[in-house]
């Protein structure tokens, strides 16, 4: 295998690494230009796409340079910190605006900036003519800034900054077509569910500070970092059981961001945003932040023995759960959304069973082929003026051969067709999972892989195969226009090369990366094993530093399945499912309909996403709102009415009592006076005299 870094740079070249400061700076500059300058100067708005693409490309180049700057990965231990300025520090709490560069960071940077640039190029074509053009690219630049900060951050607080920044940009981008009510609500839902995740993350972060006193990766996970067993032993008891809780809190944040089971509801709705957004944020980069976080903080997660297994279980269950839903959806983007949730489940499963190499590798490949799938779906949508419903289109292959071909490659990678990128990364995860203590999760993973293959090609065959008939929708740049747009799109047509170019690059990536970067001594393995995400021994019941892969062949526990065997099963299964899907959805569509009808109730449940949204609505949203009304009422009636009322009425009542006494009658007053005198006299007499 060709390992890129090893040959060129034997030693760490600090000057190159310092370039990392510019990675977030360039998109920030683009954001400033787009947001302020172009907002003011209308004529320059055409340039906004160019500015953002240039910035992203610049960042990509810088990322590569930084990676090269790291020199020979194998000699590298720990990461390099590039300090910018002191962000927040008071008392003994310090959070610097500093970047921690290590191989894992480089991998993530490459994904973010690489895929980001490609998608930006595609978007410049896709969004052409949209009134909010400059605004779109400003948000894209904001997203890349936030994502790079998230990945580069040297401490948990900077990670948190990136975390919420990404949440904000996804809010803005989902709600890009803000005049659509559904887009607005989807954006709000996304941000709030992310905020629920961030709530857990924040508490976890504070827990880390409370227990360890610092939040920098270096201090925690460095060579003599605090996050290791014997240091924990020295801590007082109450801190030790707090350590058990921290991973679960951080996990809540990861699940929120990466749309895992309890908090997955926002991702399908996020498809309201423009397709490039769905591709970039909700497929390739943002949703993987959760995986990155757990990979980065693995030593902390390993401190409590129940954390990683929980991650694995949640990942596995989400995978199968999302796959079943995707099976019955009819909206192309929703299918890909659920497939993303499912693939993320895989990654979490990988991380959960301490196969970080598998998880990161799958993350890498998934970014490419899922982006490819989304963008091709975008092309189809663009061609049919916003039509996404499977039932209203078929046989577009003849009209859009290139898009069909590209989507085929993507589907093959997603389905895990042998020797595609998806196959290698997914196989690695399944292999690790099967041979970890949670073997049954591994087999669930295999089942999900088969389901994935089936629904992927269900979509492909229905859209591109069969006799060509289609119905145009009436959306123009996201907003429904009153008349169907025959004149504009004149039926499905091939996209311009501006849009198809990046797709080809992605397609090549989807095919080649598996072979090129995978494998034992592959580039990816090198990168992961020498980062802080390297799996230390006790997690995967095997001594020795790092090298999870090396444990494979020396001794076999019971029920051990060799690597090759797993590959064969998943690959073959995928092929069989593809053929099956072809049979059902290409040749005998009527048969598919009849089976679906017979399985009525089950498909109905799948179709309605297990009614999770409705459940959340009744369980949380409505009670909270009712509580809000009650408090508001309480505020006005009780506090204002009763409390203040009683206080303000007291003097008034006292006054009223006096009134009858002053009735103007002469004798009345005389009588009162006399009584007064008598009272005084009585007091004097009885008290004094006697």
């Amino acid at each position, binding site marked *: 295998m060709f390992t890129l870094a090893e040959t060129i740079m034997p030693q760490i070249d600090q000057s190159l690494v310092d370039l990392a400061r510019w990675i977030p700076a360039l998109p920030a500059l683009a954001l400033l230009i787009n947001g302020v300058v172009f907002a003011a100067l209308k004529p320059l708005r055409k340039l906004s796409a160019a500015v953002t693409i240039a910035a992203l490309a610049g960042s990509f180049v810088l990322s590569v340079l930084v990676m090269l700057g790291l020199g020979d990965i194998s000699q590298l231990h720990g990461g390099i910190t590039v300090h910018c300025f002191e962000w927040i520090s008071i008392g003994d709490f310090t959070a610097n605006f500093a970047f921690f560069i290590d191989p894992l960071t480089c991998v993530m940077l490459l994904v973010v900036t690489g895929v980001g640039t490609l998608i930006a190029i595609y978007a410049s074509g896709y969004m052409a003519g949209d009134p909010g053009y400059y605004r779109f690219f400003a948000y894209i630049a904001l997203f890349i800034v936030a994502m790079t900060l998230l990945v580069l951050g040297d401490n948990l607080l900077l990670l948190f900054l990136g975390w919420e920044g990404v949440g904000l940009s996804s809010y803005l981008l989902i709600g890009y077509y803000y005049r659509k009510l559904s887009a607005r609500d989807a954006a709000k839902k996304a941000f709030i569910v992310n905020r629920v995740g961030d709530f857990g993350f924040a508490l976890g972060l504070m827990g880390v500070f409370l227990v360890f006193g610092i939040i920098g990766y270096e201090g925690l996970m460095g060579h003599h970092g605090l996050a290791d067993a014997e240091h924990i032993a020295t801590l007082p008891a109450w801190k030790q059981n707090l350590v058990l809780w921290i991973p679960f809190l951080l996990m809540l944040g990861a699940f929120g961001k990466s749309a895992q089971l309890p908090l997955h509801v926002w991702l399908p709705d996020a498809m309201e945003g423009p397709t490039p957004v769905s591709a970039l944020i909700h497929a390739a980069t943002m949703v993987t932040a959760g995986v990155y976080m757990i990979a980065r903080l693995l030593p902390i997660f390993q401190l409590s023995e129940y954390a990683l297994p929980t991650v694995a279980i949640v990942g596995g269950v989400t995978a199968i759960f999302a796959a079943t839903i995707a099976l019955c959806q009819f909206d192309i983007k929703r299918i890909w959304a659920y497939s993303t949730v499912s693939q993320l489940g895989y990654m979490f499963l990988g991380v959960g069973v301490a196969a970080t190499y598998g998880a990161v590798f799958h993350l890498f490949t998934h970014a490419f082929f899922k982006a490819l799938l989304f963008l091709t779906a975008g092309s189809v949508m663009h061609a049919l003026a916003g039509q996404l419903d499977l039932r209203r289109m078929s046989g577009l292959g003849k009209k859009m051969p290139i898009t069909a071909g590209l989507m085929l490659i993507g589907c093959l990678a997603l389905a895990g067709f042998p020797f595609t990128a998806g196959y290698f990364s997914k196989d690695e995860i399944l292999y690790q999972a099967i041979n970890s203590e949670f073997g049954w999760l591994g087999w669930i993973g295999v089942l999900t892989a088969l389901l994935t293959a089936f629904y992927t090609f269900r979509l492909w065959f229905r859209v591109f195969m069969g006799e060509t008939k289609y119905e145009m929708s009436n959306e123009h740049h996201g907003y429904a226009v009153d008349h169907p747009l025959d004149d504009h799109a004149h039926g499905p047509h091939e996209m311009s090369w501006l849009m198809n170019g990046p797709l080809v690059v992605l397609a090549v990536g989807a095919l080649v990366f598996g072979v090129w970067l995978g494998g034992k001594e592959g580039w990816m393995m090198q990168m992961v094993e020498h980062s802080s995400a390297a799996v230390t021994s006790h997690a995967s019941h095997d001594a020795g530093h790092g090298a999870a892969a090396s444990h494979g062949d020396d001794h076999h526990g019971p029920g051990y399945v060799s690597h090759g065997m797993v590959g064969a099963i998943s690959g073959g299964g995928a092929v069989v499912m593809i053929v099956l899907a072809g049979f059902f959805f290409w040749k005998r569509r009527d048969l598919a309909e009849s089976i679906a009808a017979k399985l009525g109730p089950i498909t109905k449940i799948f179709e309605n996403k297990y009614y999770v949204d409705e459940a959340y609505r009744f369980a949380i949203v409505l009670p909270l709102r009712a509580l809000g009304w009650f408090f508001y009422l309480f505020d006005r009636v009780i506090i204002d009415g009763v409390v203040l009322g009683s206080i303000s009425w007291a003097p008034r009542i006292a006054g009223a009592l*006096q*009134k009858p*006494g*002053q*009735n*103007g*009658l*002469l*004798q009345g007053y*005389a*009588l009162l006076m*006399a009584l007064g005198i008598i009272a005084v006299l009585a007091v004097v007499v009885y008290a004094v005299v006697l």
Partner: protein
Amino acid sequence: METIDAITLNHYLLTGAALFTLGMIGFVARRNLIVIFLCTEMMFQGIVLTLVAFSRYHGNFDGQAFVIFVLTIAAAEAALALGLVVYLYRRKNTLDAEAWSDMKG
């Protein structure tokens, strides 16, 4: 005739107090303006009796001198009061004290 000195001061005080109290009761109870003023005069009587009794039993004549002043006051008050009563009577043709209760709180 029994000796004059058998009558103690308390005797007179009792009578004076009784007169004064009856005057007050009358002042408060009766509704006829004139009778009210008459009762004030009655209270004067009670006071005068007590004054003289004290002056007699304390051997100085300030008390009695004071009675003279009481008399002048009573006379002046009677003059004015009755003038007013007549005036009020002219206005509302009644002597009822409750007719004049406009000044109320």
